[in-house]
C-alpha cells in the first residue's frame, strides 16, 4: 500500500516499502518493452509465489482502486464507469478499476500499467471477483485461469476441498501459467519462495500481536494497512519482504521498549484511552479524516479482521507448513478471512476481544462489499452476546466518497466512545467543568 500518509517520523521500513513499490511499478511500466509477462490477480488467496516462479509480474486491481481513492481519483473513475452503464448499486472497486482502465490505466505512481497477459482469477471469498474478471476478460481477451476456492461452512476445510483446489492448481492454473510465460513449472523454486514467505510472516505476526501490550505500539487497523501491504501484494516470497518485516519488527520493538503508542498522522498518540477491535475494511477516500475521528479521542485499534484478508497468519498458517507446496497454497487460499463462515468470523473476533483486552468493537460496514457486509449485523449481535461488550456499527464505502459522511460517522463514534467511557466509569462519566453562567434574573 502507499506511503501517502506522512508519519511524523520517517521509519526505515517505510522508506523501504516505498522503494519496493516504486521499483515494482517502474518494472511494470516497462514490462512490455522488457518482454516481461503480467498477471492481474486479487489479494485474498493470491498466488504471488506461484506467479513469481513463472516470473509473471503481479498487478492487483483492488490495490489500484484503493490507491486511486487515496489520491482522490476514484470518484471520477466511478462516474466514468457508471456513464458506461455500470450500475450504481454494484461494488465500487470494480467500477473504479473499469473507470481507471478506460482513462488510460495509469497506476498509483503515475506510470502506465501494462495490460494483462494472464487474468488469474483465484476466486476466494467473493463472487464479485468472478464477475470483475469476466468483465476484464471481455476487455483484454487474454488468457484467464480460474481457481474455484470452496467456501468453508464448517470449522475445518475437508480433504475434498483441499484436493479440489490442488487439482485445479495442477490442471488448470499451472498449465496456463506455463503457457503464458513459456516456462516449465519448478516445484523447488516454489518451495524456496514459500520458505521466504514464512519468514516474513513470522515477523508480521509478531508485529500484529505487539498490540496486546498496553499501550499498544501500533494501530492494528489504520497503521497496519501499511504493514500488511508487502505481504498482501507482490512481495511475498521475496528477500525484500523478509528484510522489510525484520526492520519493521525492530522499529516496533523500539517503540514498545519506550512505552510509546502508535504513530498517527499527527504524531505519536499521547494516551491510549480505548482499545478497539474492528471488523470490515476502512474507507480509503477519507482515510485520514476517518482515522482522526478515532485518534482524536484516544482510541486505538488493537486488532482487525481486514488485515487478515490476505491470509490468517496469526492463527498459525505458514506458507511452508506442508511438504507439498501446492497443498500449502490450497490451505492458504481456503483459509483467508473472507472465506470463513460467519460463525468462524465471530469466533475470531471474540478471540481478538479477549486476547487483546479490547474495550469495544467497531464494525465498518462497506456499501460495496457484500462479502464482508452481508451478515455483519448478526455477527455484531452475536459478538455482543458472547463478550458482553457493546459494538458500534458505522457505514461507509471503500472508494466511493459519496457514501462517506464524516459528520455521521463522527457523531456515531463519539456517542459510542462516550458510552464506553460511561461503562468504564460504572455509570459515571468524566466530569464536566462547573460553569458559572450569568443568570438572567427571572427569565422572561
Amino acid at each position, binding site marked *: 500500500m502507499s506511503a501517502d500518509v506522512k508519519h511524523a517520523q520517517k521509519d526505515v521500513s517505510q522508506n523501504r516499502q516505498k522503494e519496493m513499490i516504486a521499483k515494482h511499478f517502474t518494472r511494470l511500466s516497462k514490462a512490455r518493452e522488457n518482454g516481461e509477462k503480467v498477471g492481474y490477480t486479487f489479494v485474498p488467496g493470491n498466488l504471488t509465489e506461484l506467479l513469481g516462479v513463472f516470473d509473471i509480474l503481479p498487478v492487483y486491481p483492488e490495490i489500484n482502486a484503493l490507491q486511486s481513492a487515496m489520491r482522490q481519483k476514484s470518484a471520477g473513475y466511478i462516474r466514468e464507469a457508471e456513464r458506461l452503464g455500470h450500475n450504481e448499486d454494484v461494488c465500487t472497486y470494480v467500477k473504479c478499476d473499469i473507470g481507471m482502465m478506460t482513462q488510460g490505466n495509469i497506476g498509483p505512481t503515475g506510470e502506465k500499467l501494462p495490460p494483462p497477459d494472464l487474468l488469474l482469477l483465484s476466486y476466494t471469498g467473493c463472487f464479485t471477483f468472478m464477475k470483475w474478471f469476466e468483465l476484464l476478460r471481455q476487455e483484454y481477451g487474454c488468457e484467464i485461469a480460474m481457481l474455484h476456492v470452496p467456501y468453508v461452512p464448517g470449522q475445518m476445510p475437508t480433504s475434498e476441498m483441499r484436493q479440489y483446489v490442488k487439482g485445479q492448481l495442477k490442471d488448470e492454473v499451472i498449465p496456463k501459467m506455463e503457457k503464458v510465460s513459456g516456462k516449465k513449472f519448478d516445484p523447488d523454486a516454489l518451495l524456496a519462495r514459500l520458505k521466504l514467505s514464512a519468514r516474513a510472516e513470522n515477523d508480521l505476526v509478531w508485529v500484529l500481536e505487539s498490540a496486546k501490550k498496553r499501550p499498544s505500539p501500533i494501530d492494528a487497523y489504520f497503521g497496519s494497512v501499511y504493514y500488511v501491504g508487502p505481504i498482501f501484494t507482490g512481495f511475498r516470497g521475496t528477500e525484500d519482504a523478509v528484510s522489510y518485516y525484520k526492520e519493521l519488527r525492530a522499529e516496533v520493538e523500539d517503540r514498545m521498549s519506550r512505552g510509546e503508542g502508535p504513530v498517527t498522522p499527527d504524531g505519536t498518540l499521547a494516551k491510549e484511552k480505548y482499545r478497539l477491535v474492528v471488523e470490515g475494511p476502512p474507507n480509503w477516500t477519507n482515510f485520514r479524516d476517518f482515522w482522526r475521528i478515532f485518534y482524536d479521542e484516544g482510541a486505538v485499534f488493537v486488532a482487525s479482521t481486514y488485515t487478515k484478508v490476505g491470509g490468517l497468519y496469526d492463527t498459525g498458517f505458514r506458507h511452508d507448513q506442508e511438504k507439498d507446496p501446492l497443498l500449502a497454497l490450497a490451505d492458504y487460499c481456503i483459509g483467508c478471512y473472507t472465506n470463513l463462515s460467519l460463525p468462524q468470523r465471530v469466533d475470531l473476533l471474540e478471540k481478538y476481544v479477549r486476547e487483546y483486552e479490547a474495550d469495544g468493537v467497531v464494525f465498518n460496514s462497506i456499501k460495496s462489499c457484500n462479502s464482508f457486509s452481508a451478515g455483519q449485523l448478526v455477527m455484531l449481535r452475536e459478538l455482543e452476546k458472547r463478550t458482553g461488550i457493546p459494538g458500534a456499527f458505522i457505514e461507509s464505502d471503500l472508494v466511493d466518497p459519496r457514501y462517506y459522511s464524516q459528520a455521521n460517522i463522527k457523531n456515531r463514534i463519539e*456517542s459510542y466512545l462516550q458510552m464506553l467511557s460511561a461503562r468504564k466509569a460504572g455509570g*459515571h462519566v468524566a*466530569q*464536566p*467543568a462547573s460553569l458559572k453562567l450569568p443568570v*438572567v*434574573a*427571572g427569565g*422572561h
Partner: protein
Amino acid sequence: MTTWLGIDLGSTTTKAVLVNEDGKVVGAGLTNTRSNYDVAAAIARAEAIADAQLSRLEAELARNGEKNAAGTLAEVKRAVRIEQSLARLTQVRDRTVSLTRSAPDGGDVVADKTQALFDAIAKDGENVFAALAVDRSRFFRDMVAARILSDAENAARKRELPYDVVVGAYDRAIVDVENSEAAESVGVHLVRSLSHAKVSSESARRIEAAWKTLEAEPIDIKAMVGTGYGRSRLPFPKENIRSEILCHGLGAHAFFPKTRTVLDIGGQDTKAIQVDGDGVVTGFQMNDRCAAGCGRYLGYIAEEMNLGIHELGPLAMKATRAVKISSTCTVFAGVELRARLSLGEKRENILLGLHRAIILRAMSLLARSGGVSDELTFTGGVAKNQAVVQELTDLVGKHYGQRTLNIHTDSIFMGAMGAALFAKRGVQA
C-alpha cells in the same frame, strides 16, 4: 437555589431542563425558534428559569399561608403565558405593520388594516392563546399563524386586504421576532398579569410579596451540559457536551428506572437505544437523514391535509383498518395519500396506514439496536401522538410479547433531562 441545566438542541425544537440537588426537575423550557442555536439555547434556558421561578413561587406561596397554592399558581402561570404571548404579539404586529407599509403592493392603508387585524387578535388573546397555557408543545407561532391566515383570507375575500402582502410580511416578521430574546423578564409579566388573573386581591398581594423574596435569591446554575442534533454548535467546552443518545438514555432512566429500551422519535431523526440498570447506554441505532420515519413525516402529512399536527393522532384513532402505504418517501406518501383519497379511501384509514409506516421503520431500528426489552420508554415529540403509540404497542406485542410502555407527558424533555443529570453527576461525582 442551586440547579443544573441541560439543553437539548433539537432539529425542530430546543429544550432546557433545570434539576435541583435531588435530581428533580424544577423548571423546563421549550422553544421552536428557528434561529441560530445560540439564541435558541438562550431562549430555552430563560424559559426554564422562568418556569423554575414560578415553581418556587408556588412553594413560597404555600409557606405564606395561601390555601390552594397549586390552583392559584396554575392560574398565575396561565395569565403570565398570555401576558407573554400578548407582548410577543405586539412585537409581531409592529414588525408586520412596518413591513406592509414599505411593501411594493402595501402602503399606509394596508398597514393600518393589518394593524387592526392584529389588534382584534390581541383583544381575543385569552382565547387565542388559551391552548398555550396548558400544553407546552404548542407554540405561539402556530396559534398566531392559524388565526392571522384565516383572518387575512376573510379580509381578502371581502377585498379589504391583499392576502399575499400581509401573509408575506407576517412570515418574515414572525421569524424576526422569534429569533430575538424576549425583552422583558417574567417578573414584569407576572406583575402585569396579576391585574387580570383570576385570583383574589389577597392572593395577588401575597404573590407580589413572595416574588420579591425570590428575586433576592436568583437561581444559581452550577453546571450545564448540552446535547442534541445541534450540540456541536453550542458555545460549550467539549466536556460539557454529551451525545443525545446518552442523554435520552439517562433521561428515560431518571423518569422510569426500569427502562431497558428507549425509542425516541424526534423531528428529524429516530433513535433506538438500549440501556442498562444504571441508565448507561449499551447499544443504539439511528436513522439517516431522510424525513420518512421521523416527526417531520407526520408534520408534512398534516400540512398536506390542512390539519394541525396534534389533530393527526385522534383522527387516525378513528380508523377501522390501516391502508398499506407503499411509498417510503414522505413527499410520495403525500401524493399516495391524495391518490387514495380520490379513490374513495377513508381519510382516517389512510392516516392510520401512515402512522403504521412510521412505526414499522422504528421497529426495524429497534430490532437493529438489539430488540425491545422490558420496559420500553417512548420519548420525543411524536410520543404525544396516540395513534403512533397504539401502533407501537401492537407491533411490539406481536414481535416481542408483553412489554410495559412508558410515556411521560413531558417526554419531549427527556434528552434535556438526561443532559441536566449529566451536568449534576459531573459536579457531584
